């Protein structure tokens, strides 16, 4: 298993899409901070004081983490990295060398998870650095270590859950284009679909609470609603483990072309 993960990491290290995604993660953090700053300046001197009192690096973090942009980018990257094995036919080399299929699947989960977390950390780091330079890290003392850690770790877990779903889709569809489309839909379209279904079935159950994106939005706050953190952790673990288990069982039975 160690050798498979090392081999996957070697591929990741030599993967151009990975570095492009890292750059985009960093650029989007800087761009968002500069856009907010330019917006503040454009409002005029009277409003600036009022608005400037509420923005900081931590508030920028809250805004960045709540966006669907990051999961969408991760979905595209995982599709390229995983489905590319089928597109290039290289998955055949792995299987025909007698590597256990479950281990192949798990290594994809582990390495894609690591890639996604690295991009997340880069985005977080650039948000912090740019926000701190422009407004200070937390000049109004909103954040505590525990609520900041809960937000970041909770979001990290939910992004890993997304990564597990993306790997599942990419291994199952085995087509780069199809898996990019489905993964983008999972991030952008599926939450809208859940909302629509919720209109039909009424407010007794909030379906978005059971999908990853709803919890990402709920946790992208330094003062989340009570129970949101626990719910986010449970949903994240369920999708992470569920995607891994079902995906590895399906891959074990799949013929490889």
């Amino acid at each position: 298993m160690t050798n498979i993960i090392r081999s996957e990491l070697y591929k990741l290290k030599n993967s151009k899409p990975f570095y492009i995604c890292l750059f985009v993660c960093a650029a989007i953090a800087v761009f968002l901070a500069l856009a907010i700053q330019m917006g503040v300046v454009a409002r005029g001197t009277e409003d600036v004081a009022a608005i400037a009192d509420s923005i900081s690096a931590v508030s920028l973090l809250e805004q960045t983490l709540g966006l669907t942009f990051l999961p969408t980018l991760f979905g595209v990257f995982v599709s390229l990295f995983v489905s590319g094995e089928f597109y290039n036919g290289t998955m055949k080399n792995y299987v025909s060398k007698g590597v256990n299929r479950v281990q192949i699947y798990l290594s994809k989960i582990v390495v894609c998870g690591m890639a996604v977390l690295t991009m997340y950390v880069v985005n977080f780091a650039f948000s912090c650095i740019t926000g701190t330079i422009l407004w200070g890290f937390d000049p109004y003392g909103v954040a505590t270590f525990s609520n900041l850690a809960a937000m970041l770790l909770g979001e990290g877990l939910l992004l890993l859950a997304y990564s597990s779903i993306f790997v599942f889709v990419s291994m199952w569809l085995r087509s780069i284009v199809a898996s990019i489309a489905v993964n983008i839909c999972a991030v952008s379209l599926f939450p809208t679909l859940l909302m629509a279904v919720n209109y039909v079935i009424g407010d007794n159950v909030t379906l978005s609470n059971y999908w990853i994106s709803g919890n990402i939005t709920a946790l992208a706050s330094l003062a989340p609603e009570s129970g949101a953190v626990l719910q986010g952790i449970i949903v994240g673990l369920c999708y992470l483990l569920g995607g891994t288990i079902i995906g590895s069982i399906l891959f074990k039975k799949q013929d490889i072309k």
Partner: protein
Amino acid sequence: MDFVVQTKDLCKVFSGKNVVNRVNINIRRGDIYGFIGENGAGKTTFMRMLSGLAEPTGGTIRLFESDDLEEQRKRIGCTIENPAIYPAMTARQNLEVYRILMGISDKGIVPELLDLVGLGNAGKKKTKDFSLGMKQRLMIAVAMIGNLDFLILDEPMNGLDPMGIKEVRDLLLKLNKEKKLTIIISSHILDELSRMATCYGVIHKGNLIDEFSSKELERRCHRNLKIVVDDVYKAEHLLTTTVSANFDVTADGAIVLYDHLDEAANIGKMLVSNGLAVSALVPGEQDLEGYFMDLMRGKK
């Protein structure tokens, strides 16, 4: 240990159709097994099952006389259909991926293999810019990483120019000779296959319809005289007793004579004078392609 591959009643069914139907193949250590068949005959599916890419619907596979296929497949290398390489990486990086995967600590194996397949000078060129011949040779190097004893090659000559074909052929013969590598190879270029293979299997509509060694092929394709008579048993007796001839009788009752070929007229006269009606006396000589074509037409 004699056998590298043993299959028993191996089957694969796709959408209710038997793509591979009860195939029994035994490949001995050191063999170069030429696998012949038309498009869609089941060659690739059979090879995919051997290499673990497809699950058999029925039957069994034994590799190196063991049932632990996952473990034994570590000794197998394969190139099935198109060359499967990472296009954005160099040849060295491609091999590094598999060196790490197989847990080989000796980094020297990568340049060694590149030299062996003639890609030692490929340098930093990305494999997407390789010619098809270079890709095929790199695939052979990828297949050879690890403790390789058996190579599965599906159409490795496809798309190669004559020089590329010769390079791949020379490489395979060298590997077979020097490393005692057992190889199963399918190809539509039968003339090329006949320059390498030591035994052959012919698959048709999923069924293995013939299996023979290169010596047997030589004998079957040897210059011959095909004789068709009204009484085969009498003709057999006459040929044995009067001229001590070396011959075979085909399934459709023709006699194929392998010697006394320059005395065709006398042999015909002798048969007729002994009361036999000779309806055909045809000289012939074949190569593998001709033999295969005849086999497909049901002539043999």
